[in-house]
């Protein structure tokens, strides 16, 4: 086998994975601190986020949309077309307010990806002010790492490094799981989600699906 052929063979799995359909879960923090605080009474947050995800979908992709506040709600079945994703966002639009169980929501989202092949991952839209969780940050990161699920954070909190800084944990989360962390203004939300989906396709291209333990 020539060196060129060998190189081509080695490159094949990554190239194939990059074009393989992606499995994405988008979860949106609709707690008071996000929907009433940093972005005042933002009733269109979920709709806009779901629309941005829908616009970034490619043929064969599957997506789930969810929210977390006083309740964690994630679409049970994977959605296969953009219109269905937009409709899911619209259904969740009225659910705003409450606390911020970010870590619980991530673990729940990871559970829905059990058995799904790479590329797969979670996009979470939040301000990082976690409250009302059953599990802690370290446990959540540990479970996500063991499951091999990268987390792509889109943070709507661009405030100048408050003390304590909720963004610090979000960066740790992304780094530990192999995802990314973007800090954006509200108008830049659709672009940030598109970029996260793109990153998810690339980062997950080399990742192997692992067994989930939930």
């Amino acid at each position: 086998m020539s060196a060129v052929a060998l190189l081509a063979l080695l490159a094949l799995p990554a190239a194939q994975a990059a074009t393989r359909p992606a499995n994405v879960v988008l979860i949106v923090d609709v707690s008071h601190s996000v929907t009433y605080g940093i972005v005042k009474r933002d009733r269109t947050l979920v709709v806009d986020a779901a629309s941005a995800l829908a616009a970034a979908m490619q043929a064969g992709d599957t997506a789930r949309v969810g929210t977390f506040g006083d309740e964690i709600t994630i679409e049970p079945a994977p959605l296969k077309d953009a219109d269905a994703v937009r409709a899911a966002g619209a259904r969740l639009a009225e659910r705003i307010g409450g606390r911020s169980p970010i870590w619980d929501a991530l673990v729940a989202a990871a559970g829905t990806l059990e058995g799904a092949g790479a590329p797969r991952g979670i996009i979470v839209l939040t301000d990082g002010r976690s409250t009302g969780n059953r599990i802690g940050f370290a446990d959540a990161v540990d479970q996500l790492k063991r499951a091999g699920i990268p987390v792509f954070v889109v943070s709507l909190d661009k405030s100048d490094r408050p003390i304590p800084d909720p963004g610090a944990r979000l960066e740790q989360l992304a780094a530990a799981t192999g995802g990314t962390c973007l800090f954006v203004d509200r108008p830049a939300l659709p672009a940030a989600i598109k970029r996260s989906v793109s990153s998810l396709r690339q980062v997950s291209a080399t990742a192997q699906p692992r067994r989930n333990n939930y």
Partner: protein
Amino acid sequence: MTRLLAAALALGLLAQQDRPTFKSTSRTVHVYATVQGKDGRLVPNLTRDDFQIFEDGKPRPISVFDNTPQKITVAVMFDMSNSMARELARIRDAAGAFVRALWPDDRARLGSFGLEVAISPLLTSDKPTLLRIIDEELWPGGPTPLWYATDLAMTSLDNEEGRRVILLFTDGEDSGFFVPGNRGEMRRHAERGGFMIYAIGLPGHGLSEDLQTLADDTGGGRFLVGQGDNLGATFAQVVEELHQQYLLGFSTDLVDGKSHSVRVKTTREGTKVRARQSYVAVDGTIR
């Protein structure tokens, strides 16, 4: 004749409606009492004979007496409004001291109010979990939705048995919320549920008169901490006080759904008693 019969029936019905409702089953009204000496120290060695209980001003026999340490079920709510941001490290330390002072059977639920009113779903004795919540879930910023937070804390303990305590840590007065708190409804909730409200205040606005009255009426306590004072010691003091309370009780036949006054006294000179000042004679278990 028919008219007379109808009038008689109507009068009979009215007479029935005017009558107070009584049921033969007497139930117990539990009262937790804190007794302090002149020096403010807790007085732990009193007997049943040292106490007197009055219901609506009338003495009642004490049917329940227990002076063994009582386990705590408590929801602690931390004010995280804007003005508390500079105190966060101190608050975390104090909250840690509170958790460490708890006994193994005690259970606590932690929450905060500011940008959100958030209360943990966990009511637990597990100290590492409670310390983790303190470390991860306190975020300063926002208004002071004190009454909404108090009501939510009580709701989170509504289904718990025994003594239920709400400990509020705040530096200000209620400043409303996106869903405004209803002070009147919150007070009724406290009385109906027999909750004990404790409040620890920081300098600034201190504790509002409403909050002080609420603490007094429910038999709880209130503490104002100075800038240089040890906040953790005050939290630990609350835990100690709760463990040193006396459980008293008296029987009642009232089922009128109304509020009735309760007063507890001791015959021991130089002592002061704090206990709930009323209860609601509901049909069913009186809290």
